[in-house]
């Protein structure tokens, strides 16, 4: 008991010093289980390779330049789609959030199209745009758009009315109220929307790459299935998880915290 307690306190102290450690340690039992299962000989190696094979595949694919290229393709697609989605979604959300009229007109349409979902568009997109970048970008923009719009509306509507009134009585024009009050007031929600949108977009992208892609992580995994290379499939899955963890925990979450908590908008 005493030893457990002491090692736990050592662990909390270590993770306080190296926060990255806290993210890695929980995976130790998962990897151990993986090793145990593969080493037990329950499954043939080609059916379920171990971590060592996956790491080897990582180095060989990196060395041959395939992995970096595919990774870059996937990320560029994701960020182009996300940027477009934001460029459309934030102004749209502000319009809907500030104008009762726009709200009434657009809300049913928004909910209708939100329900259709990203992948459900693929059949018609393939007919319209074929197998290519346009189709992929459309799907990502579509997935990113809804969380951004809905959260922006939420953010705009959550800005206390007195703040806009205060700004007006201090001489701000309606346009400056938008810039000085509405936008910063809605920012924490906008970032939450972006965070959700990127998460959905990342998943949608992989799915789309499997179907229409000629490159990218999703394509790599689906292509590996054709040649029966489980190692590459596992590698793809691990990269998806790792990459998202890095983007979310190291970039998006800190931005979200920095805006919301510093201003006391989010009680933390």
């Amino acid at each position, binding site marked *: 008991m005493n030893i457990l307690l002491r090692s736990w306190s050592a662990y909390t102290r270590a993770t306080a010093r190296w926060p990255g450690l806290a993210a890695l340690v929980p995976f130790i039992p998962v990897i151990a289980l993986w090793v145990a299962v593969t080493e037990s000989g329950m499954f043939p190696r080609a059916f379920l390779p171990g971590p060592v094979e996956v790491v080897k595949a990582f180095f060989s694919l990196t060395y041959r330049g395939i992995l970096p290229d595919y990774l870059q393709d996937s990320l560029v697609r994701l960020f182009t789609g996300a940027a477009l989605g934001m460029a459309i979604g934030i102004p749209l959300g502000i319009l809907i959030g500030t104008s009762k009229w726009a709200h009434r007109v657009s809300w049913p349409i928004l909910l209708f199209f939100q329900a259709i979902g990203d992948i459900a568009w693929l059949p018609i997109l393939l007919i319209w745009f074929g197998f290519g970048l346009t189709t992929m970008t459309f799907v990502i923009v579509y997935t990113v758009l809804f969380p951004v719009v809905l959260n922006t509306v939420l953010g705009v509507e959550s800005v206390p009315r007195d703040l806009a*009134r*205060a*700004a*007006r009585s*201090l*001489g701000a024009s309606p346009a400056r109220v938008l810039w*000085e009050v509405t936008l*910063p*007031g809605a920012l924490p929600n906008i970032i939450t929307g972006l965070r959700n949108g990127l998460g959905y977009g990342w998943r949608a992208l992989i799915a789309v790459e499997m179907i229409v892609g000629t490159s990218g992580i999703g394509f790599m995994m689906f292509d590996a299935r054709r040649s029966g290379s489980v190692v590459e499939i596992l590698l793809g899955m691990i990269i998806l998880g790792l990459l998202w963890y890095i983007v979310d925990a190291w970039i998006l979450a800190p931005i979200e915290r920095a*805006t919301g908590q510093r201003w006391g908008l989010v009680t933390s």
Partner: protein
Amino acid sequence: MKTLELRNLKKTYFDPYAGSHVTAVHDVSLEVQQGDFVSVVGPSGCGKTTILNMVAGFIPHSGGEILLNGKAINGPGPERGVVFQSFALFPWKTVLDNVGFGPKMRGVPKAERDRIAHEYLALAGLSHAASRYPNELSGGMQQRVGVVRALANHPEVLLMDEPFASVDAQTRMTLQEELTRIWQERRPTVIFITHDVAEAVFLANRVVVLSKGRVLDQIEVALPRPRVWDDLIEDETFKRLSAQVLHMVRSA
């Protein structure tokens, strides 16, 4: 010289759920001289906030006139500064930038508006808090910033709606004393809304008593200044005036 004039002001709200009209302000006429300090008291629901919101230009009036220097007001404007019960400080701006917001809207360059903001923060004893964010301040400090932010924009009229209602009793007394001191120094025209009778009498030159959307009576407060609670709490005139206003409000 009269700055602000309300003539037969009226406000009718439409209640969409009941489908009927509610008259919150029936017929209010009021004159406020330049540099005067007027308190408005009345029981809850008598229309105090409604009147202030109309004068501020936040909501349209249904009848009568609101004249500032003889001209009808039209929407909110910087010549009518407002101090809110909710403080309404911008959470994403530092205290300094909150106070400098009005000058910024007027196009005053950064260095000059920082100088103005520092000057007004000093007036409220808040120089040390200039670089902090509103949520890092106590309620009393936040409302000092609220008052000073409105003043730094040099409004012709300062409109205050129960600004000290949400701070503790001790802090409220300090804020009231500070407000009278700042008012004496800068002499803005003030309309101060409250349901606290003692506060109304302590602060103002004149107390307007409202009842059900009408002016019931107006009482002159000829107490000497500077006013401090330690003196006035025992003062016979203060006690008599407070009692007089209290009876009126309670019978209103």
